[in-house]
C-alpha cells in the first residue's frame, strides 16, 4: 500500500518524539538549506546502490563549501558497466570508501532538519530513505526543494507557450552558472546550490532563444 509521504511523516514523527532523532522532525526556522546529490549505480530506486553522496549548506546567498559532505562508499556488487560510463566512478575509485551505516549517520547529522535542495531531489531522498528506513525506522522528514520547480516557477511567467526546458545543463546555461564538476556528487550539489542562490536572489534570467 502506498501511504502518502505527509501522512507517513506525521506517523513517524509521533513514533520518534522521544527518540534520539526527534530534532529531525522539528520545524526548521533557520535560513539554511542543504543541497544534496547522490551518484548511484542505476536510476531505478529499487535496484540502485549509492556510490557517493555530496552535500553543501547554503546560507543566505553564500554557498558554504568549506562545510561540506563528500562521502565515498564501499563499492557495491552491482557497480557495472552502464552506470560507470555516466558517473565515471570505478570500483577502484571507491577503494577507500566508508561503510553505508557510517555514511547515513553523517548525512543525518549534516542535514539535520534543514530543507533538502536538489535536482530531481525526490530520487535522492528516496534513495536515502531506502537505506535509512530499515535502519532507523523513518524516512527523511525534511522539506524538499526541487530546483527545476523553482526554476520553472520563475521562468513560466516570462515564457509563453511550449514547455520549459528543465535539463540540468540548460538551466545552468540560462542562469549563466559555471558547471563545476558534472557527475560528481559534490560538484553537482554545489552547482545546484549556486543555481538556487542565483534564482532566489538574482534577477530572473532572460530565457528568450
Amino acid at each position: 500500500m502506498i501511504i502518502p509521504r505527509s501522512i507517513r511523516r506525521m506517523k513517524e514523527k509521533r513514533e520518534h518524539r522521544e527518540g534520539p532523532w526527534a530534532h529531525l522532525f522539528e520545524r526548521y526556522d533557520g535560513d539554511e538549506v542543504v543541497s544534496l546529490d547522490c551518484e548511484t549505480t542505476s536510476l531505478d530506486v529499487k535496484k540502485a546502490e549509492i556510490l557517493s553522496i555530496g552535500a553543501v549548506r547554503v546560507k543566505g546567498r553564500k554557498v558554504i563549501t568549506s562545510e561540506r559532505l563528500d562521502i565515498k562508499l564501499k563499492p557495491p556488487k552491482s557497480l557495472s558497466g552502464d552506470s560507470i560510463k555516466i558517473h565515471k566512478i570505478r570500483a577502484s575509485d571507491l577503494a577507500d570508501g566508508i561503510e553505508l551505516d557510517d555514511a547515513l549517520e553523517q548525512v543525518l547529522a549534516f542535514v539535520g532538519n534543514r530543507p533538502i535542495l536538489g535536482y530531481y531531489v525526490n530520487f535522492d531522498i528516496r534513495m536515502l530513505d531506502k537505506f535509512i528506513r530499515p535502519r532507523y525506522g523513518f524516512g527523511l522528514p525534511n522539506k524538499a526543494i526541487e530546483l527545476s520547480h523553482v526554476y520553472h516557477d520563475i521562468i513560466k511567467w516570462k515564457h509563453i507557450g511550449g514547455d520549459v526546458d528543465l535539463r540540468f545543463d540548460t538551466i545552468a546555461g540560462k542562469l549563466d552558472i559555471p558547471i563545476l564538476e558534472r557527475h560528481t556528487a559534490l560538484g553537482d550539489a554545489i552547482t545546484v546550490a549556486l543555481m538556487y542562490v542565483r534564482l532566489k536572489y538574482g534577477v530572473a534570467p532572460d530565457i528568450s532563444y
Partner: protein
Amino acid sequence: MPNSFKMDNIPFSLLTDAEQTLLRANLDIGYFQKGEKVITAGEVPDGVYVILKGCVSESEAIEAGVEAPQQVFVQYQNEDYFGGWSALRGKAIHNFVAEEETICHILPTRTLLDLIASNAQFADYFQQNLAVKREIVAQHGSNQDMAEFMLAKITAAAVRDPLIVEQGTSIRDATELMRTHKADCVLARKGGRLGMVTGTDLLDAVVLKQLPLETDVSDIASYRLVTIDHQDYLFNALVMMTQQQIERVVVMAGDEMVGVVELTDVLSYFSSHSHVIGLRIERAASVDQLREAAQGLNDLIKALISSGVKIRFTMDLLAAMNGRIISKLFDLIIPADMQPHVCLIVMGSEGRAEQIMKTDQDNALIFRDNLAWPGMQATMQHFSDTLISFGFPPCPGNIMVSNPAWVNSVGDWTQRLSDWAATCEGSAQMQLAIAVDAKPVAGNEALFKVARNWFLRHLRNNDVFFSHFARAAVEFDTPLTFFGNLKDRGQLDIKKGGIFPIVHGVRTLALEHRILKTNTFQRIELLMEQGVMEEQHGKDLAEALALCIQLRLRQQILRAEEAEDGIDPTPNLIDLQQLNKLERDLLRDALHVVKGFKKHLAQRYHLGG
C-alpha cells in the same frame, strides 16, 4: 570547493600540495547581485575574494552627507582576487561593489593567516609591494632559463682554467702545451706580469715575422689584458668582447687571476647574434655596409624579447648598438678635421637609452663657438637622411640635425636652454625635457659637458622653474578602471598613463639634484643613493617602468609584424585583451605605483589642484 578553484594563478600556485588542499577545504562560494556591496568599508571582511565569474569594482568610501562623485580605483574580473589587505588588517577601507552578477570564492581570513604563516613566498606575494611580486613572478616564470643566463655571474661554469707558462718557454713548447691541453691561448709570465699569447699571435710570429721556433713566448705576448671581475655578469663579458673586438677576457678575483672566458663559450649560451652585429657595425667601411648591419638589429630585438631577456639588459645592449651605429656614421660622414670641433648628441628616449624599437630619432649638434664650416648644414642634412635610410624614423617634431634649429654653437645652445627654462609655455618645456636627456655619442664631448654643467648651475635653487617643469608629469590621468570592461574599451595609452609620468617625474628630480646620468633607471638608483627617494619607492618605480616598457614592447612587435610597412601605427597603445591574468595584476599594481608617485610629485613641487 573541490576543483573549480584555479590554482594555476599566482599567488595560489606558490602553495604546496598540502596547503592547496587546506585552501580547497576552506573555500566558500558567495553570490552577489549587480550593485551589491561585496565588502563594505569599515566592516570586517570575510576573507579574500577570488572572482569565479563577474566583475567587482573597488572604490573610495564616501562619507555620509558628502556629495561627491564615486571614485572607482580598480575593477576586478574573472580569476582576480581582492580584499587581501582588508582581510589582513581586519577592516576594509574601501567599498567593493559587484558591477555585474558575481560569483566569488571566499578564502576565510583564518585560513589566509594559516597559509601566510606556513608559506613565506605566498605571504610575500600577499603583503608585499610590486618589486617583490615581480621578483617572485620572475622566479616562477616560464622563461626562467634565459633570464637566468642573463643574470648568470661569471662563475666556474664558463671560466676556463688558464694555461700559464714561465718566461723562457719557447714558441715550440708553448704550441705543444696548447695542443695537449686543447687550449687556444697561453698566458706567459714575465716578471710579475702576465701576457696573453693566442694562436693568432703564434702564427703572426712564426709565419709573418719569421721568428725562430726557439723564441721566448713572453716576447710576443700582449700585456694589456682586458679583465673582468668574477662577480660580474656573463652578459657584461659579452658586451666587453663586442666593444673591444676581442675574443677572450681574463677573469679576476680581486688581484688574483681565476681563468679565461672565451667568446665561443659565451656565445654557445647566448644564441642571438648581438656579437655578430656588433662586429659588423664596427668593421663597416662604408655607409652601405653600416646600413646592412643596422638592419640586423630588429631581428636581434625580437630574438631577445621572445627569449624573455630582462628588459633592462635588452635596452642597455641596444642603446650601445644604436649609439655605435650613430657614432660610426658620424665617423664616416663628418670630415675628420671637423670632428674635434663638434659634438653630436642624442636626446629623448635615445639619450636615456630607453629606446628599443626605433620609434624616432632625436639628435642635435653642438659646435665650437666661431667655428667656420660652410658646408655644415648640407652635411647634417645628409647625415639625417642616411639615418632615416637605416630605419631610424624621422622625428615628428623635427628634432634632428637636418633642422638648423638643432645645430648650435655652445653659446647659442646654452642660451636656448636658459630661454626655454625661463618660459612656462608648453612646447618650450617639452623641448627642454627632451634636451636635458641629451647624451654625447660622437665628436668632442667636452663641448657638450661645458653646456650641460653651465645649465645645471643656472637652475640651482630655481624653485619656480622646477614647479613648472614637474607639472607635465601629473597632467595625464592614470586610469585604473579599465580592467573590468574589457569589451568596451580594452585599450590603454601606456605612455600617458604610465611611462611618461615616471620618466618625467624622475627627470625633474634628477635635474634638481644635478644627476648627470640620463637613463631613468640609473637616475632612480642615484636618487635612492642620495636619499632623495626612499629605497622602496625607487625599486617599485623602476619595476613599474620596466613592466610598462616590456608590455608595450611585446605589443609593438606584434603590431609591427602585422602592419604592411612593418611600422607600428599606434606604438603606445596596450591592448588589454592580450594580457593574461598575471600581467593584468602586475600592470594594475604598476599603475598604482605611478599614481602614488604622481601624488608625491604634486606635494613636492606644490602642484595642488
